């Protein structure tokens, strides 16, 4: 039972090494015939448990598609994608929905929150949907970590963009998912708020043992991750452990120039 697993025995310290999610020969093809577009071309990658991984690449590289496929938001054309022991390609819509609800947390670029619910209601929404009672101690810890204790009764319209994204982070963390997918979580924020949010993401990995996969095109954001994987034209072309912003920028420039020459 995923319920039991997520409410009782989640480790507080970084998890032992191993993959929280991985893809093998994952392909995603849109359309057919002349309009056929290969968004992902046999990608194999693994996302370590208790690690913070960034997916980078120029626009159109397939980085968002990879995330959507890994997170059960989109179907897979060929190959395999797994969250823990669960093979996604075999699941129907109902099972995927349930998987997302119980095992995955999401942070989108914008519009993460329901305007009709206040901060705490938004944070507990995934558990409300599942019909679970949130673990109050854990919730307090999460809320405290993102620094929202004072604003829990505020509606999204009464919060700044940075605060809204922090609510989104808290929501993703609150249900203790096996993995969190973040899609350009700082894309709409100013650099200070962005740094704050990224800091929370990194802390949640280091201190709470959370697994996070983040799609970004910002080298500064990627530098918060433990590891960066690079995508171009639907293929995994490189990766960088313990990156710095300069390293990432440098690598990106190189791809662009090689990309242009061929």
């Amino acid at each position, binding site marked *: 039972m995923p319920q039991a697993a997520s409410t009782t025995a989640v480790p507080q310290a970084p998890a032992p090494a191993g993959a929280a999610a991985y893809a093998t020969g994952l392909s995603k093809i849109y359309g057919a015939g002349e309009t056929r577009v290969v968004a992902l071309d046999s990608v194999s990658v693994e996302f370590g448990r208790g690690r913070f991984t960034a997916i980078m690449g120029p626009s159109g590289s397939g980085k968002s598609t990879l995330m959507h496929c890994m997170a059960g938001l989109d179907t897979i054309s060929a190959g395999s994608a797994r969250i823990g022991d669960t093979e996604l390609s075999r699941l129907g*819509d109902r099972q995927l929905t349930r998987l997302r*609800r*119980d095992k995955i947390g999401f942070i989108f670029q914008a519009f993460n929150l329901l305007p*009709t619910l206040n901060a705490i209601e938004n944070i507990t*929404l995934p558990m409300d*949907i599942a019909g679970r009672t949130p673990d109050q101690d854990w919730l307090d810890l999460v809320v405290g970590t993102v620094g929202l204790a004072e604003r829990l009764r505020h509606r999204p319209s009464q919060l700044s963009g940075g605060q809204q994204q922090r609510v989104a982070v808290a929501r993703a963390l609150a249900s203790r998912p096996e993995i969190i997918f973040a899609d350009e979580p700082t894309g709409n924020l100013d650099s200070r708020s962005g740094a704050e949010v990224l800091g929370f993401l990194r802390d949640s990995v280091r201190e709470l043992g959370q697994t996070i996969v983040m799609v970004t095109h910002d080298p500064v954001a990627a530098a918060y991750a433990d590891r960066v994987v690079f995508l171009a034209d639907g293929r995994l072309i490189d990766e960088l452990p313990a990156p710095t912003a300069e390293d990432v920028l440098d690598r990106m420039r190189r791809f662009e120039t090689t990309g242009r020459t061929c």
Partner: protein
Amino acid sequence: MLRTALRNVLAHKARLMMTALAVLLGVAFVSGTLVFGDTTANAFRNASTQSLKGVAVAVQAGESAGDEAPVSPGAGTAAGKDGGRPSALDAALAQKIRALPGVDSVRPTVNGQATLAGKDGRPVNADSSWQNLATNYLPGKDGKDSRFPLKEGRAPAAEGELALDATTAEKAGYRVGDTVRFATDGPALTKKLVGIVTTDDPRVTAGGTLTLFDTTTAQKLFLAPGRFDAIAVAAKPGADERALTAQVQSLLPAKGARATSGADLAAEQSRQIAENTTRLTKALLGFAGIALFVGVFIIVNTFTMLIAQRSREIALLRAVGASRRQVVRSVLIEAALVGLGASAAGFALGLGIATALHPLLSTGGAELPDGPLVVSPTAPLASLAVGVAVTVLAAWLPSRRAAKIAPVAVLSSAGLAPPARSLKVRTVLGTLLTGLGVAVMLYVSTLRTSKETNLMTAMLGGALTLCGMIVLAPLLSRPLITLAGKVTARFGVSGKLAKENALRNPRRTAATSSALMIGLTLITGLAVGGYSTQRALDEEATQGLAADYKVSNSAYRGLETAAADDIAELPGVAAAAPVASANFDAQGVFATITGTDPKTFGRAADLTFQAGSLRDVGPGRIAVSDQFARQAGLHVGDTIDADMHTGGGTPNTKNNKNNKKKLTVVAVYAKTRAAYDALGAVADVLPSAETHKLDNVLVKAEPGKAAGLEQKIRQALGNSPLLKVQTREQLIKAGSGSMTTVLNMLYGLLAMAVVIAVLGVVNTLAMSVFERTREIGMLRAIGLDRSGIRQMVRLESVVISLFGALLGIGTGTFLAWAAGSLTTASMPLYETVLPWAKLGLFLALALLIGVLAAIWPARRAARLNMLRAIQAH
């Protein structure tokens, strides 16, 4: 701008569909009514032209020029035997008119009523006996009567013969050669059917019957030998109709007959036709207006939402140089295009409605002749104008908001949610309107009569209250929907989100519910008023009545005095009480006395005596009701000088107070419908009774013997087709039965407003789903499954519908209660009674409406492509 508007209409086809449908239905209602009105008026006019064809002068008995009072018996004309009507017109007069220069021919007619017994013995159309025409077959020069073309057999020519029209013969099951049983006023008569004719008399096409006799027989039956009711004069070509009319008039006796020119008669008839159809058309247009008014809410909602969704587009237009006025105009043009398209389609549908209305209203009891569909040029023009005007006017308010969008809004990234405007103005205005409306209605609830000014006041109060509620609805939505949220919360997170969504934009929710509220206010008002009236009528029909059967004459011609004795002799009859009634004046008070047999009346009616008893009543000794006793200051032992009004068909009773009678009060009883102001011996009352006959006989059966007595009673009294034997249940039905038909028709007419309101719910939900695409995508991503999304939309729909229904039922009940007092004078037993079952049904219906309205929007929401939804902007 026209192109922009056109593109917008085409681009938002789906979103404008419900609006267009609402306008379409409203316009269809309007055009259907207009075409129906034209068609009916035309059919009536055709019928009247037909009947007046070739009539230059019409001479009618019964009315003399300049004196509207009918002739009284013995006023110079021969009173017929057998109680036949007197008439100033006779054969000699017809001859004199015929001899006038310029007269081509005269057609003297005898008009009466004859109700047939069908071949199976059952009366044909006896409850509407005024429709059962009887007249004389009058052979012309060619030996045929041009009014009644023979279809089969020959014309009636002897006393024992009659002819029927084809429809009547078929309905009654008679063929040429059969012996037909019928009655003109009382007893059953028989004659042989010798011919079948055709007719297009509107009363016959509307369900009546036609019986023809030869002239002598008709005169014997209805008038007196040689007498006529009317003489139609045909002029020679070129004769002056007016001059001829004057000449004819000069031949007539000073009293008791009148000549009218054919032209005047035609003018008078078409004036009456116009008046009648206009009244009907006006009533229907009122309902169409309600439907359109409900549609306005949908239009306003749609354009408000469209403009909010399009605010960035509009800002762009403004940024590239479009003026405010141009923006407003483009919205209005868009509205006009939608209105025009929808109205055109609506008109087409209206033609169908007009065709369907005829049989629908005919079953409702209206007498409508058949005729071809007539479309006057005003009908399509008026329909289109109304449709376009309503759409444009309704879109005008939202269009002003479009003008307020600043060009800079094009740059704002989020900026879609319009700032919530304060509801302060609404609160003040709504409270004021509602308060005023309620105050007026509370005043109305103290009134006791339904005279015109009171009705107008009630309508004003009702309209004010309803408008006030519409204005207040957004304010009321918060507490009521929050309350509803407690229930929806049982459905988990979907229910919670549904409540929040319904609360999110109070104006939108309120406008959607208001549309439903209007329909339900009217329907509830109707249901409460109708139910209460029905109860009052039921109670009135049987108040104080202990009898199992009431025997009467369905043409109100009374029963022979012997009828009570004949019935009393039947086995199984415990008592048969004769009932006659007459009017009199005593101590300056007008009163009605019931004459009966004191020995049997106690078995047939429940009377509560406050002094004396029924046994004391007898010739010269009467009982009076407590109310009459109070009014006239009477006590037991008093003797009154009653001015008995003379009966015999003369309403002009004031001249006939020559019938003084000394009556002694011997008892006082509690007033009841079974006995009017006073109760006396039948012998004292009969001479002054309207028909000099019994009104009815009340029959009490021996215990357990009531069933099946009806046939025995009919047989005992000669089984005349005019004989009416009603059981208690039938009496109750007769009291309120016809109301059910009318109520159902009104429900049907109001249902249109509800249907449009349902479209409004669908519309709001569909557009809300569109607006909330990203939210729905996000909810799906974080784990709400499709059924959860569907449930969310469905519950929001149900909450909105129930909110509207609740306001409507509440307002309708209040209005019905307040206006109910107006019936006090005419219906003393009226009391507001809530038809709980019906109100419950309305709520259940609202629930169903909510579920049904959500089907399509919920499906759309559940089927949204999640990825695109998340990325949508």
